[in-house]
């Protein structure tokens, strides 16, 4: 399973997908594929259509045009729950954890381990606390006390807990919405490491970001989204970090800006 062959169908693929909201065209003619066990980065600036793309991939929106494929099979999601049931988990930037709840309660939220039968069905609290700690440790996240509220964790740790949770509950495809955008340099590094770990553990990752530096560090494939359209597609072998940054920033525009700033400064 860990070896990717070109014959294997992509974990997730879009073919000429478009999305319209009334007269607004949010996405048009977008095609992309998410190969198994790789990190696929979607780069785009504000307003490029990243949010719409995530919502289509995670089942919040259904596309107006085009077709989505999961493992090569044409698929349409009616709700986020259907996507989750097919192993496609999305970690939204700030909406993934409940700050006032203990780490272990957050980890198992929605998938609580129980025992007994109704009305004597109880949470397996001891098991949950211990296995949560063990699972997080396996992902390289060392949490002292799983009883502490998630709000007391740093932003990076919180993202890491969300990612670990999605992987633990059987995500084959992990969609990450700007996981590093609110984080400091060190914390971003930690989250990027977890993204790489998840891919190495057999998860296909869609990493959505506006930071080409972060994308280049962990990505295998890169898509560039702008004004609702797929502008370019690269693989790690055929692009350098500089080219990626330049493409992302609009190439020539950046040169002009650098020139202008240099002249006035």
């Amino acid at each position, binding site marked *: 399973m860990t070896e990717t062959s070109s014959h294997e169908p992509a974990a997730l693929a879009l073919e000429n997908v478009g999305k319209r909201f009334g007269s607004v065209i949010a996405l048009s003619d977008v095609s992309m594929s998410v190969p198994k066990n790789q990190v696929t980065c979607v780069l785009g600036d504000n307003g490029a259509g990243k949010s719409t793309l995530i919502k289509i991939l995670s089942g919040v929106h259904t596309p107006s045009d085009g077709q989505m494929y999961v493992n090569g099979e044409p698929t349409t999601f009616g709700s*986020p*729950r259907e996507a*989750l049931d097919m192993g496609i988990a*999305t970690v*939204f930037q700030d*909406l*993934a*954890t*409940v*700050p*006032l*709840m203990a780490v272990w*309660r957050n980890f*198992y*939220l*929605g*998938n*609580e381990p*129980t025992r007994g039968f109704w009305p004597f*069905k*109880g*949470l397996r*609290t001891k098991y949950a606390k211990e296995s949560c700690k063990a699972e997080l440790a396996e992902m390289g996240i*060392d949490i*002292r*006390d799983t009883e*502490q*509220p998630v*709000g*007391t*964790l*740093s*932003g*990076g*740790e919180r993202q*890491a807990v969300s990612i670990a*949770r999605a992987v633990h509950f059987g995500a084959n495809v992990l969609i990450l919405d700007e996981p590093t955008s*609110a*984080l*400091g340099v*060190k*914390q971003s590094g*930690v989250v990027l490491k977890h993204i790489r770990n998840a891919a190495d553990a057999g998860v296909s990752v869609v990493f959505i970001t506006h930071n080409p530096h972060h994308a280049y560090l962990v990505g295998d494939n890169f898509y560039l989204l702008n004004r609702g359209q797929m502008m370019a597609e690269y693989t790690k072998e055929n692009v350098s970090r500089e080219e990626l940054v330049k493409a992302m920033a609009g190439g020539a525009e950046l040169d002009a800006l650098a020139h202008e700033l240099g002249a006035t400064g």
Partner: protein
Amino acid sequence: MSTATAVDERVNKASPLTRLMRRPEIGALMGALVVYVFFAVADQTGTFFSLDGTARWTDVASTYGIIAIAVALLMIGGEFDLSSGVMIGSSGLFAGLLMTEYNIGVWPSIFLTFLFAAAIGFTNGWLVVTTGLPSFIVTLAMFFSLRGINLGVTKLLTDTVRVAGIAELPDGSPRPGYESAKAVFASDFSAYSFRIAVVWWLVLTVLATLVLTRTRFGNWIFAVGGDSNAARNVGVPVRRTKIMLFMYVSMSSCLVGIISLMRLKSMQAGQGVTQEFIFIIAAVVGGCLLTGGYGSAIGGTIGAAIIGMAFIGIAYAQWNTDWTWLFLGLILFVAVLTNSLIRRRFQGARK
């Protein structure tokens, strides 16, 4: 929020004291001890401390507590219910009218009244999750509506503002089923006249605590109050959880309504109105956050105990009972201030 801390900076191991102080109800528990000692000392009659006195204040506390626990759970779930007080009257009147005007048996009437209360709670919850309006507004509307219906329907059917004659049939013979219902909802026990409502109160405290801390549903209550978007994103049925909480509150009010009806053998159309804030005070004094996501069931119980002690303690201290409300106001403020100080001191980043 400690977003600037590096990931390898660990949290200090919490000492047992810190762990204890982290409990949401600890401030209220200390407050309850202070209030208890205070009234035991101020007592002029020598009964507050005795079993007789205890039976008195637990009696007051129990009918507040039964609902305060439910209100605490609802508040943890991030919502309010201002119709919880008037529901006491509505349920008592509903059951009483079924018995006296429609000659339905006592137990079937009680059963139907619980169904009625569940329907009212469902309506509250359904309106809140469907319209997206604040529960403060939705349940305030329900409060006024029920208040009007209570008065209107009672006057229409009985030509008075009360429903009476619960214990006897019109011919003066005892109403069948009343004695057994009274035994369950309104009997006394032991030489000190402890009321059965105290047992209901304590049993419900234990049950609510178990549900809150030891079940999936309890986990969902914290989640929908803490961050309903995050909860929805991980698959928690947010709407169902909130609706069930509203139903639980209404049915608690119904239980108290039935208890009152069995005790008084009659029901005033205005019964229960203005009590809704006492339940909220009890829950908040007990450490529930007004913004949701934090608190405990036992906190509501302790809050109700403080209020019960205050009501009875002031009478035993032979002060003018007009001052009771001032005392409640001060307790509310001091308790919430203490709670927030404790939280800040021992929890750092918790809001």
